[in-house]
């Protein structure tokens, strides 16, 4: 049991609640998030969930999604300082991806009408959700997150897809908050499209259900599932609807 205070509200959380964000959720205190996804390791890249923490007579600004709770911690989620920093954080996101609906919506909630910065229009904000999903949930390890590295000559951070490893499952498109990665099925083909930082389009062949004729999943994904679970390939001859 951990006892802490959030916005002057005394809260007790059980050992399963490990982060400030989760503790705030329990107390029905809302903290804006963007890169956070409950199924993924917290990333802390968007900086929107920042809060002010007082602990052991020290204080600091931390991201709620990945900062661990501790007994006696005093957290402020809505001070003027916190609000102003959040506004700046959302302005920086707007400066990268002004057309994103979710970012516009977050900006409106925080009272930011527009960004004062020169806008660099792109879809990807390097939140890394797709990268984490591909490695932590899917296990295909196809999405690469490359950071800038001076001594290797990498002068730009980017998200990229290793077409060979990608199984076309679409988990990345599901978690992408800004639609930088999208998916479309046309006939027996699936297209996975990454718009930025570098444009990429990968084509997959879809498997047809032997009964209803529906093109229901990428062959590569089904092969991947067979390989990782040891199931025979025949179980995917039929789509889930026709199977029972």
């Amino acid at each position: 049991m951990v006892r802490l205070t959030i916005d002057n509200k005394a809260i007790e959380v059980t050992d399963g609640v490990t982060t400030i964000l989760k503790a705030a959720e329990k107390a029905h205190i809302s903290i804006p998030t963007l890169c956070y996804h409950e199924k993924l390791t917290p990333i802390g890249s968007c900086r929107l969930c920042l809060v002010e923490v007082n602990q052991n007579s020290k204080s600091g600004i931390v991201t709620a999604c990945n900062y661990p709770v501790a007994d006696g911690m005093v957290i402020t989620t809505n001070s003027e300082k916190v609000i102003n920093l959040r506004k700046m954080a959302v302005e920086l996101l707007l400066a990268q991806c002004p057309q994103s609906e979710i970012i516009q919506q977050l900006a409106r909630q925080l009272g930011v009408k527009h960004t004062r910065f020169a806008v660099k229009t792109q879809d990807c904000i390097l939140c890394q959700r797709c990268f984490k999903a591909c490695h932590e949930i899917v296990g295909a390890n196809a999405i690469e997150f490359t950071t800038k590295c001076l001594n290797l000559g990498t002068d730009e951070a980017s998200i990229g897809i290793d077409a060979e490893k990608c199984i076309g499952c679409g988990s990345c498109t599901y978690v992408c908050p800004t639609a930088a990665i999208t998916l479309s099925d046309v006939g027996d083909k699936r297209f996975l499209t990454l718009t930025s930082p570098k444009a990429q389009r990968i084509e997959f062949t879809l498997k047809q259900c032997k009964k209803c004729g529906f093109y229901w999943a990428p062959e590569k994904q089904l092969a991947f599932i067979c390989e990782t679970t040891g199931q025979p390939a025949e179980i995917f001859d039929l789509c889930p609807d026709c199977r029972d």
Partner: protein
Amino acid sequence: MDKVIFSSWQGNIVDNRGLAPGKYAPVNNIELPHEYDSCQTHAFMSWDGFVVLDDTVNIIDMAQAYLNEAQKICCGECSAGYVGIRLMAETLDKILDGKGKQEDIDLLRCLGDGIRENAKCVFGRAVPIPVLDTMKYFQDDYLRLIKQTEKAVRTNYISRITAPCMEACPAHQDVPDYIELIKNYHNTDSLALIRKTNVLPGICGRTCVAFCESKCTRANLDAPLSIRALKRFPADIEATSGNIPAPAKIKKAKQKVAVIGAGPAGLAAGYNLALIGYKVTIYDELPAAGGTALSGIPSYRLPREVIEREVELVQGMGVKFEFNTKIGKNLTLDKLFSKGFEVVFIATGANKGTEMNIVAKGSRYDGLVDGISFLYDVNVGKGVVARDKVMVVGGGNVAIDCARTCIRTGFKDVTIIYRRSRAEMPARKEEVEDAEKEGVKINFLANPVKVLAENGKVTGAQCIRMELGEPDAGGRRRPIPLTGSEFIIKADMLITATGEKPDLSFITGEKSVRVTEQGTIEADLYNGRTSQTAIFAGGDCVTGPATIIEAIAAGNKAAKSIDQYLQTRTFDQTGDRLMSQIVEKLNLTQQRDELFVAQNQRHIPEQIPAPGRTQSFAEVEKVFTAESAISETMRCLRCYRVLLLATSNKNGH
């Protein structure tokens, strides 16, 4: 320091503007030379403020250049750092180009405040600090720039990007970035980055003393990162994958360079010279490469195949090896030059054991051996036959290696005798503990004074108790013998591991180099130059017994200056040396904004349990699991520091 016009270093403002030079207040928290060689320094800017020495510098231009440098290492892990710092640099650029408006200044301040509080890493949060200082204390300069429409004159600066761990490492390895690459599953890239400054990651990932860890910012918060173990992780992944790394691109240079000694210094120099295209031949008296890593480090700490693999990589770069060749016997220094080598790099190490004053000079006993020879016999030589009771004299890593090797070769009773106490032991703490877990006993505050023998065979030693007196020049408390405390220890073997020194008997002839009173080669630690123009030296033969990473660093530096010498016949490194002198006096972990970081436990790699492991020479420490490696990388605070220096040539350039 005196004669400073303005300083905001660490947030302590000293503002002497408008005062007569005689009335200047001093600056006490930073030391910068006004002059260095042909260089005159004008201003310095870094993570915790800036210092202005004269009025020749446009501080806003400097702030912009500082942000440009900082941008090079804005990794992309958070938008505050990646986007925010770029926007700050662009805004300052606009102001300097005469296109700035008042609102740009407000925007810059807002950005700076936001990044300082909310960037993800220590580096990102510190970047705006000196820029915000310029805005606060040089407001008039900004207003003047806003009013004018013409472009300001832009200048070049000397810069260095470093970090506490990088600066502590003799080879200045780019630790934060290679850790970051591991975190993002780019193990191959991480290894490629490590190899830029360290050609022996598998060896160092197991045996390095890790100066980096002692300076890690986290050491003051909870525990330093396990940097050494993290380095081993990508190296082992590559090794188990069986992939041979693609040889790095070779540039075009044609001259022949001879390297004497295939230890860490020689291998590092050879690899880096081969990268530039030089035809390198490495000579060694041993039958294989590795130097002290091979002959001195037991395989339970460093398996032989790890050395072989890393040597193969050097070979793959086209470096030739001539083994079983002792320079000085058939081949002399002079002969190397007549064979067409234009430069010789001496890296012969320090592998001669020092004699203890416990026997009559020159007399030999069965069972009396120095540590270096003992380890040589076990690792590459004729092997040793275990006896019952052995006494190892000394408190360094060689003594520990000898003792643990004795345990594994079947000695029944292994005791280390050390003249100081545990706290003064120069051996790595973990190694001492490991030895004790394996059954090694340590007799502190005692020293042998005389070998006891029967029929030329060691039976023990007469020893004396010691107490600790005043600290000596090295800072360790001096051991003083306690009169009348003599006692006898029985032993079948006595191993003296009380220091090593270089064997310089090959330094003869026309091309000989100057040697110091300590019996080491006199050479510039910065570039390896000796008293002979075409002879360079580095590693233990210059420093005396030191560490593998120091030897690698010496090899790297020598390769760089050998290249500079062969291409230009010059050795100009003034800017670099000046920067090093400044960095040396800075505490890179200190900063005005207090760190607020959650405690996070250090991961350490697993070991084979102690009782079983002494039965063989199997490697004791395991490699990190992927899970522990990734969790450990998350602990890195990424404390990069950008240093910028405004200088000019005194001769008016």
